[in-house]
């Protein structure tokens, strides 16, 4: 039979990484992956995050931080939500969603952030909160929100997790944005999904 069987190839030798921010992208990737397995890795990863521009290495940094899932690792990722780089913002959202427990203490503040983009992106984090907390936070947002895109993001989340007690906030939002057909349609769909008390 022509198929062969042989012992697995030995693992490729990987030089002990000296720095997470120097060397080739392959070396930085290896350094990041190694740091992720160290007890003091979060501080190293956090320091490297804002300096790393190679998407593959940056992805590994985010994975390492998400895997740590500590207050420190979430705090390291949150500033990326304000980045002008859409790829970095998206990666940050994914990382924060991958560590819901560590992100949870930050959600209320993020939903009240002065930056509408941050509020919009942070609506997604509410999906992973306990439902009563998510309904309260998104309901509070809807009654005060002035940016329709932020409101739409909150409504989309409530379409899945909304409870009847958030219906008044949806109605208040609908009244405030009465001239916006898309948002009114979204609110109608969410209310229908929330449905029966």
């Amino acid at each position, binding site marked *: *039979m*022509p198929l062969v*069987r042989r012992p697995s190839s030995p693992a490729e030798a990987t030089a002990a990484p000296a720095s997470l921010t120097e060397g080739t992208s392959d070396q930085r990737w290896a350094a990041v*992956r190694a740091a992720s397995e160290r007890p003091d890795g979060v501080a190293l990863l956090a320091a490297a995050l804002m300096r790393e521009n190679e998407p593959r290495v940056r*992805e590994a940094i985010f994975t390492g931080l998400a*895997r740590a899932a500590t207050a420190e690792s979430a705090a390291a990722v949150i500033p990326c939500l304000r980045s002008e780089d859409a790829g970095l913002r998206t990666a940050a959202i994914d990382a924060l969603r991958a560590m819901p427990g560590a992100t949870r203490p930050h959600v209320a503040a993020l939903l009240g952030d002065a930056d509408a983009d941050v509020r919009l992106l942070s609506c997604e984090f509410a999906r992973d909160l306990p439902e009563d907390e998510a309904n309260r936070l998104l309901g509070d947002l809807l009654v005060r929100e002035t940016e329709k895109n932020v409101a739409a993001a909150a409504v989309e989340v409530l379409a899945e997790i909304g409870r009847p007690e958030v219906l008044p906030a949806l109605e208040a939002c609908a009244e405030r944005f009465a001239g916006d057909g898309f948002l009114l349609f979204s609110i109608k769909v969410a209310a229908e999904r929330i*449905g029966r008390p």
Partner: protein
Amino acid sequence: MSELPAVTEEEFRKVSDFLYRRTGMLFTETKRYYVQRRIADRMTFLKIGSFATYFSYLRGDVDGEIEQFINAFTVNETYFYREEHQLRCLSADLLNERVQAKKPGEALRIWSVPCATGEEPYSIAIWLLENWPEVDVQDIEIVGSDIDTECLTAARQGEFGQRALMRLSPALIGKYFETIGPDRWRIVSDLRQSVQFTAVNLMEGSQTRQHGKFDIIFCRNVLIYFDDASRRLAAENLFESLVPGGFICLGHTESMSRISPLFEVRRFADAIVYQRPTGGTHG
């Protein structure tokens, strides 16, 4: 048969949206009865009286409920020639592309992970022997790995019942198996010897690295069970286990694009697979 609880169209959509986001599994309206049936079964089993309560239970993944729910939509048992379209893609496209990229005499390495009790790596071996003309001139190394060492023991023994062989023709069974009892067959010795079985935890980079680099990885129907952080880590470990230009095949309900941006999507006639990029410094 238990009476189905009233699951409204909106409630069905809620579940469908949640499952898509959580697992990548897409349930359209045509699957509504199936989903509803499963919800009813789980609610009855858990003695939960309302959909809203069950949905909270599911979303919260209480007692591993997401896995319990997903199990209803995946084929938990494995069998020979499962997802045959990927095997067709392997022999028609993937291997030929990998051969072009390799030095003469360099072995092609294929990894089946998780391999459960061995049906998949043995299927790959049989399929290639039957369907890939180059099989006589290329060295092909097939490794099956799993976290479950009892499964690996069974895989090495290579004994299977009728259900596992249901997709194989009598001719193939006669060629690659020996009868060892009523409705019981064992892979012939030569074929058993051609597949190597090892233990691995996909979450442990130190373990995946020990297996070296592969040209093609079959990693089907396991990532959907992982949470987001675990899935990202497993994806990076798999990425690292591929040679540049190597391919990874997932289950038909899975999408690497939703897990990690590291891979490129490749569409072939028989399957969509994911590839480790060859260019730049992605080496």
